[in-house]
């Protein structure tokens, strides 16, 4: 295992961690812009977190320890993700050959507990959300693994660090740009799915029947909810960084430039999410699988193409 | 003297006709015991026949005789206790016929003269007719009539076949006594066309008796209508005797270089038999008929094994031994079931495990054995037949073979499971279980089991000797 406790790596990690809520604000701002509104303040998410952390909690009499375990596990897995990701071309804190498999399975673990926590409440609505969550994300996970397979084919590596900082880095500026373009689109769809964004899920809607992620955490309150929210921000950050790293190779040689460009690309990605949310409506639940399958088909297509390109 | 194996039962049988019931039973048991002793004597130190032109001590004959003798001893013990329950009016006739039947079968086993073999086989039909007939119900009469007529017709054709075989010698230049052993010596000089024709008629003739389809039609009727000890004897001993006739002729064909032809004929009949029994075992409603069809199946398997030759021939011999043991055990058990329930319908013999636990266990063990599960012997023989068939490249044959085995297993296991395990509303037991009647079938099963764990060298050598003449070996 490569452990990099360098100042840069750690600093990037903390910066990412700290800025995740801010970037969520970007989405809100973009949406507000398109709606012709002023929108909430940039720091709205920090306010929310602080408010939640100060509160106590109400627990349903139906629940068990699982309900309390859910937020902790999902937050832990999200943090684990960040530990392994090479932000802005910096070496990640940790990495090893094969870490991607482990990380996506850890994400699965987090989801497992989130879903269980939802089912723990005995609420029919939360059950509904849970069912949708596991279904859509299992499809998304399959798409992710095909992407990973493609990356292995291109770079021969199995870790984020190798993908983006190794000798055969995968990004839009390499020789297999056409394939990566397909992957970027696919990954963006996965990002929307995994983070419960429009058009898969609408985090801002008010009808529980139509929700996925939000309905699952209906009964959580106080610090528990804060952990969930923070976990969700981290997850979003992770996927956005993933897309960003594909869009641009942060290997200018100067870490400073890398970070600046990275920040810009990240903002763009978040803005992209906001843009999509502004101009599309949420799909009907039964068309969502097809939407996810689109991403899946894109990567599969890309993978088949590698049979021609890479010999 | 070799002839004593059939003379003794003939004499005893005639005597039993006129003796009172009690002493008749005693004589039955005594004769059975002496028969075993004589057989053992002949087995270990062949004394040889008085008239060598008619009778001979052959390994395959001794195999059949040995099985028959052992079975008869246990079946006669069973019969005595069984008869005590059913109170048959003509018990002396039954006991006498049993002995005469034994005599006729023993004669088949030791006959060497071609026509004498025929005489003996026909005699088995006639002697066993009263055994089936004994209940005198409509059904048993019908069964007897079909048995006697169909078998007589069939065996008459075997006589024709025998004539053809004799003629094949007369067509050639050699002249030897009309016995299988002397014919075997000159087999390569016999006229092949007539030999083939003879073989066909003999296979069809003795095959009728052996239960090869499509000549098997009497078999399910006779086996289901006969009292259980008689069914056990028919299935366990008589079919082997008929098989012996076919086998002798096959030997001759192999000697004449027509082994491939006769082997293929046997395989064809064997497969048809298996298919036919599969047809009727699925959805069977009568458990004795089910067992009867299973006998047809197993005779088919033996025919296939012999037809394939090589190690499959060895397997076929093993199959014959174990089938006799297990099937007669099953038939004896059905006697107990019939006594207990008073019906042969599978539908009305439910819940055996609760009502008649010992019977149920014996029955199921027998079924497992007949389906080829270890620790019973049919497992080995079926495995070896499959192996032998593939070794000779008979892929189609083995596909049909396996297909039939699967079908038959599917049919039979459903029925047997229903009988043994399902539940029944009433707790009525017509006749309670009794160790005296339960023990003979158990002993038969244990014998099969023992023969799997340990086979006496002399038995092995006899089998090896018997199959060597048709090119069967144990080394592939």
């Amino acid at each position, binding site marked *: 295992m490569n452990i990099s406790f360098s100042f840069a790596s750690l600093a990037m990690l903390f910066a990412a961690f700290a800025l995740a809520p801010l970037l969520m604000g970007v989405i809100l701002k973009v949406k507000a812009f398109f709606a012709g509104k002023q929108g909430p303040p940039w720091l709205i998410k920090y306010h929310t977190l602080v408010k939640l952390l100060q509160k106590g909690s109400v627990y349903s009499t139906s629940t068990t320890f699982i309900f309390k375990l859910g937020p902790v596990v999902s937050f832990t897995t999200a943090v684990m993700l960040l530990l392994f990701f090479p932000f802005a071309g910096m070496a990640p804190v940790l990495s090893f050959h094969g870490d991607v498999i482990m990380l996506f399975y850890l994400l699965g673990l987090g989801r497992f507990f989130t879903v269980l926590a939802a*089912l723990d409440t*005995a609420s029919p*609505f939360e059950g509904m959300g849970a069912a949708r969550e596991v279904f859509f994300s299992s499809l998304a996970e399959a798409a992710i693994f095909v992407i990973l397979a493609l990356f292995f084919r291109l770079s021969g590596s199995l870790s984020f660090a190798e993908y983006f900082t190794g000798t055969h880095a995968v990004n839009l500026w390499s020789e297999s740009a056409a394939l990566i373009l397909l992957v970027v689109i696919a990954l963006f769809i996965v990002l929307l799915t995994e983070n419960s964004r429009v058009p898969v899920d609408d985090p801002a809607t008010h009808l529980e029947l139509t929700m996925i992620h939000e309905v699952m955490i209906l009964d959580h309150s106080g610090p528990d909810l804060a952990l969930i929210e923070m976990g969700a921000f981290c997850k979003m950050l992770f996927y956005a960084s993933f897309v960003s790293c594909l869009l641009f190779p942060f290997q200018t040689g100067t870490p400073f430039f890398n970070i600046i460009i990275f920040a810009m690309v990240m903002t763009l990605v978040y803005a992209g999410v906001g843009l999509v949310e502004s101009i599309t409506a949420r799909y009907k639940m039964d068309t969502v699988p097809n939407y996810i399958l689109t991403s899946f088909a894109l990567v599969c297509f890309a993978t088949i193409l590698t049979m021609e390109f890479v010999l | 003297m070799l002839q004593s194996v059939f003379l003794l039962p003939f004499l005893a049988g005639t005597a039993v006709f006129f003796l009172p019931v009690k002493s008749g039973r005693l004589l039955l048991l005594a004769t059975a015991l002496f028969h075993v002793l004589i057989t053992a004597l002949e087995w270990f130190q062949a004394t040889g026949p008085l008239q060598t032109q008619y009778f001979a001590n052959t390994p395959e004959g001794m195999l059949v005789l040995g099985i028959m003798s052992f079975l008869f001893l246990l079946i006669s013990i069973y019969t005595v206790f069984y008869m005590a329950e059913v109170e048959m009016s003509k018990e002396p006739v039954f006991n006498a016929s049993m002995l005469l039947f034994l005599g006729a079968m023993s004669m088949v086993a030791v006959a060497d003269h071609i026509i004498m073999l025929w005489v003996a086989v026909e005699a088995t039909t006639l002697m066993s007719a009263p055994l089936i007939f004994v209940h005198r119900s409509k059904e048993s009469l019908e069964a007897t009539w079909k048995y006697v007529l169909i078998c007589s017709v069939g065996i008459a*054709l075997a006589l024709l076949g025998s004539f053809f075989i004799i003629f094949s010698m007369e067509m050639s230049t050699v002249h030897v006594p009309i016995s299988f052993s002397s014919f075997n010596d000159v087999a390569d000089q016999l006229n092949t*066309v007539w030999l083939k024709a003879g073989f066909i008629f003999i296979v069809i003739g003795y095959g009728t008796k052996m239960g090869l389809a499509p000549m098997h039609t009497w078999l399910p009727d006779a086996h289901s209508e006969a009292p259980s000890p008689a069914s056990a004897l028919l299935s366990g001993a008589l079919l082997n005797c008929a098989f012996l006739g076919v086998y002798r002729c096959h030997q001759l064909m192999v000697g004449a270089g027509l082994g491939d032809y006769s082997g293929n004929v046997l395989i064809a009949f064997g497969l048809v038999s298996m298919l036919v029994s599969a*047809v009727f075992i699925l959805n069977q409603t009568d458990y004795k008929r089910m067992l009867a069809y299973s006998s047809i199946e197993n005779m088919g398997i033996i025919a296939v094994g012999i037809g394939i030759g090589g190690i499959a021939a060895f397997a076929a011999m093993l199959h014959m031994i174990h089938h006799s043991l297990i099937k007669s055990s099953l038939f004896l058990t059905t006697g107990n079931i019939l006594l207990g329930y008073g019906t042969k319908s599978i539908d009305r013999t439910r819940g055996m495990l609760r009502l008649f636990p010992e019977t149920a266990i014996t029955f199921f063990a027998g079924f497992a054995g007949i389906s080829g599960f270890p620790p019973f012997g049919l497992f*080995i023989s079926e495995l070896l037949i499959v192996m032998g068939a593939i070794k000779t490249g008979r892929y189609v044959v083995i596909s049909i073979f*396996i297909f039939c085995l699967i079908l038959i297993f599917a049919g039979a296991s459903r029925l047997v499971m229903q009988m043994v395990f399902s539940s029944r509303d009433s707790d009525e037991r017509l006749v309670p279980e009794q160790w005296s009647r339960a023990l003979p079938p158990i002993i038969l099963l244990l014998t099969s089991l023992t023969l799997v764990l340990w086979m006496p060298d002399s038995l092995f050598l006899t089998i090896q000797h018997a199959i060597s003449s048709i090119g069967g070996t144990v080394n592939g």
Partner: protein
Amino acid sequence: MDTFLIALLLIAAGGLQALVTFRAYLLMKILAVSTIIGGCGLGLYNAVNQIFRQVEPFVCSCEWLQIFTFSLKIDAVSAFFLIPVFAISAVAALYSFQYMGDKERSAATAANYFFYALLIISMSLVVCADNLISFALTWELMSISSFFLVIYDFHKQAVRNAGYIYFFFTQAGALFIFAGFGCIYAHTGSFSFDAIAAIPESVKLTAFILILIGCGSKAGIMPFHIWLPYAHPAAPSHISAVMSGVMIKIGIYGIVRFYLLLAPTSVLFGQLIIVLGIVSGILGVVYALGKHDIKRLLAYHSVENIGIILLGLGIGMLGVATGHKTMAAFGFAGGLLHVLNHSIFKSLLFFGAGGLLRQTGTAAIDQLGGLMKRMPFTGRSFLVGSLSISGLPPFNGFISEFLIYYGAFHGLDLQGASFILTNLTILSLALIGGLAAACFTKVVGIVFLGEARSEAAAQASETGSLIIISQLILALFCLLIGIFPEPFVRAAFLASRSIPLLADFDSMQFLPVLSNIARTAALFLILFLLIAGIRKLLYSGKEITQSGTWGCGFTQPTVRMQYTGASYADSMVDFFRPFVRVQKKYSGINTVFPGKTTYSSHVQDTSETGLTLFLVRPILYLLGKLRWMQHGNIQLYIGYIVLAIVVMLIFI
């Protein structure tokens, strides 16, 4: 005498004494359980010893029936498979002590212990069998003893039906194995395992396919798995655990063993296995999603996990065929380790299901609920089992899946069909993982969480102590393997060393990968504890109140309103509609004052309906048509004889 044989004798003694002492019920159980556990312990010790000390294989043979030899040989592969055989059997025996509590049926219980002992012995002998005939013999013994175990509750129609289906499949499978053996025997001319590798390549494939069908029907590979979802719910739970956890792996053993013996060079073998693995894996989990009976659901998960094992083995075989060492080593190690892992967590889950069944009297998921509060130990160990079977870190299922992934990823530089299959392997592993997690969130969520859906579930209490202890032991091992995988992976690797290609493979290649996973898992746990601590801190001194669940506006929520397992899985099952046919019955609302309306859905197994529709029915129809043959008319019968003569004379 060897430890192995002593262990078997001990187990046999335990089984046999039950037949004698069954009138003293408690004594019989104590003696049976303790001797079986003792024997298994000894056997386990021996197997572990064998595999790690890498001593010369244990060989033992005796003459049998003049022409055969019954011979045993414990090499690394055998020893590896012996580990789950003995380990799980021992724990299941412990479990059975309280689970088998019906004094009324002492004879049946005694028979159960007898056949249980026989099953353990025959399974371990299959694994050690060293020639065709010994393999066939012990295989059949295993089949028949497990059949008797399945029909323990024979007075129930469903159980008899299950027993019948199992019996049928097991015998049909055995005949296919025999045919495969025939192909081998036809070319080697002997029953021994020695010369098998020398037979022609084309025959190898035929033999392998035949054996694959036979062993596959035991293992529960997709089109031949039909008996599994019947037999597992029917059997007592410790038997389901052993059958699902161990016995079906013996089918896998057969495949592995004959693969090793045939030593084929073609890629077809690996590709075939991968295709089967994909089908079993994906469809297994989809059917599992659609099932509402917990034991049946677990049975389908066995099919799924067999699929995963096959994927691993298939990757390994592809690796061998293409000379790709990493792929081969990781594929085989992953497949084999998954054998062990699955045996542990599947037994654990069956134990849990058995406990539920015992306490609530129902196995229907949608009748249960909220049991985590009433059965805390069962619930927690079931949760561990669920996490493991979903392949989530830091539990054992993840380790083996990781190895398979690792092998598969490294196979991505292959070309053509092999590349596509490798890709599909990765894809289906991911899909299986996701769906398995979905399925087990359903089970845990519906059964253990929420509110009780029936009176029985509401009144349930925790099960017996031994039942709990046996579950805890297994749960512990799930976590142990997840965090300290090295020795276990090493065992699996040593077992796969029998492949010539891997003989010189450096096991050091495994170590960094494994230590990385282990460390990450440990890190995860530490981080988890840390965050849990922080959470505790955040809550210190805060007001925590209890209240009902927020009903989203509904003020009178009832337990019947909870999401059920059926509705939970509905959309997912729907997604796979071409392969999974769902039968829905809905009474509808058609009057002004609607009466009681009902709705039920039932997922049909496509291979089962296909088999019924395209094979069983036509055959039965055809054979039914032939029944006029036995017409009862004697003239016709004589006609048959004449016909036979005519036909034969034509072909003279």
